[in-house]
């Protein structure tokens, strides 16, 4: 097994790159537009009737025709984790709680950031999609799931 350059002087130079992207949102634009107003915009497959949030542009069943539909934004936490993360482009890193959430009417689950009194939430807790206050680098960051105080307790 060989080793890194033996006895080499630490010849390094500091490089800082600033990259600016004109980043399109593509076919998912209606989804992101929904998040910007706190709405859950999903896709529904015309072939198998399954509903996807986060949306899919093609269905795993092979269906190519999907319609945009708006869900209530209410759902249930499946599993969650607390830890450090970076929201890209915001320049801030911090402690967040993230979860897999099944929204009512959706056949899949979405990844989302919890807000509000998130320490009181766990698997089975009712949450609703909300638009988080603030300026965000990407519309995905607008989405925040907060306790749904009107929601019925869920299994």
């Amino acid at each position, binding site marked *: 097994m060989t080793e890194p350059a033996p006895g080499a002087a630490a010849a390094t130079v500091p*490089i800082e790159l600033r990259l600016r992207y004109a980043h399109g949102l593509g076919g998912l634009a209606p989804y992101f537009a929904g998040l910007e107003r706190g709405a859950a915009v999903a896709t529904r497959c015309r072939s198998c009737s399954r509903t996807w949030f986060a949306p899919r542009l093609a269905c795993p069943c092979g269906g190519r025709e999907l319609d945009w539909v708006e869900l209530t934004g209410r759902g249930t936490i*499946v599993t969650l984790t607390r830890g450090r993360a*970076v929201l890209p482009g915001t320049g801030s890193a911090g402690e967040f709680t993230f979860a897999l959430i099944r929204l009512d009417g959706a056949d899949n689950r979405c990844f989302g950031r919890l807000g509000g009194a998130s320490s009181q939430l766990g698997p089975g807790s009712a949450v609703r999609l909300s638009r988080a206050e603030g300026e965000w680098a990407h519309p995905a960051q607008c989405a925040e799931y907060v306790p749904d105080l009107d929601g019925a307790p869920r299994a």
Partner: protein
Amino acid sequence: MPMADRPEIVVAGCGATAFGAFRDGSTPRDWVLRCAREALDDAGVEAADVDAVVVGSESDFFSLQLAPGALLADEIGLVPCPVVRVEMGGGTGGAAIRAGFMHIRSGLHRCVLVIGFEHAASHLSGDDMRMLYGLSFDADVDGMAGATAANLYALSIAEHMRLYGTTEAQLAAVSVKNHGNAQANPGAHKPMAITVADVLASRPVCTPYKLLDCSIISDGAAAVVLASGDTARNRSRPRVHVTGSGCASDHVRLGDRAEPHRFRSKERSGRAACAMAGIERAAREIDVAEVYDAFTGAELQGIEALGLANDGEAGAAMAAGEFARDGRLPVNLSGGLIGQGGAPGATGVMQIVTLTRLLQGRYWPALQPQRRLRTALADAHGGIATVSFTHILEARDD
């Protein structure tokens, strides 16, 4: 080409750097040149004998070198050899091995140099690395929303724990084993003598994962020479054949998977590789394995997906020592990503280096089992087991 006429594939030579955080100013150009030469010398071949090159590296954001394959092949002296670069996240090294396997299996090439490298530990800050890794899932939908490798793996294992009763102490047993194995591996990034209590007391990262449940990101490079059986020259050791290669994918978004705790791509990849190798019961026929342990729980999930333990039983088997150095099926004798380190492009290639040396009885002495090893399994994946690669190696006295 009929199956019977397809060339057998031999690991003819190996070379590798240590894994670590190289703060000596050296670069992948230096590491790859040295480990490629080592692999060629080990195989007993000259650069002129190589008729194709496969280079695996995960991200040009890490290395600041786009199109690294051409540059590295040129540096090694392999112009005008055909060269391709492959990428599949943390499974990049596995993808490179599979690409090399396919080059020969197809009959197009006879002697392929497979290289994996990553400049991942000493080039960027931790937060920059976490952010970039977050973009390796569904960047727009999940990555921009804050997904990281740690929080996605955590969500997956949390579900496994809820369904099977897998405990944090069982996860910690993986960390103790892999950090411990790394102590006997002079090329390891993070050798440590620790206890389950140490792991449980380490700083929370993403619940339930704590600092010592996590693998470490490393710099490093590895290379192997794959050759058709009739081309390989070095016959001084038991010859190590690549008898099976599998690859499969799963939905990228964890939420799109019906069972987010299962590594379905690994189940399929493992079955495909074993079928090709003629292995019917992996748990009985595999003698040693390197399993992709990005996090402690991922090793347990991988062991189950590969059929090396029943669903939900890997945690208890781990705690009972079944996968320890002297257990029934040693897993990650190298220390794995947790102890040896994880240089994504190099990891899957390093697994083949490790297993080849183990099968030939020339691995690090304290880690070399006393019993004869015949069959080995290498497992690597990208994403949260989004794309898995499995290879089966077999030592033969031919």
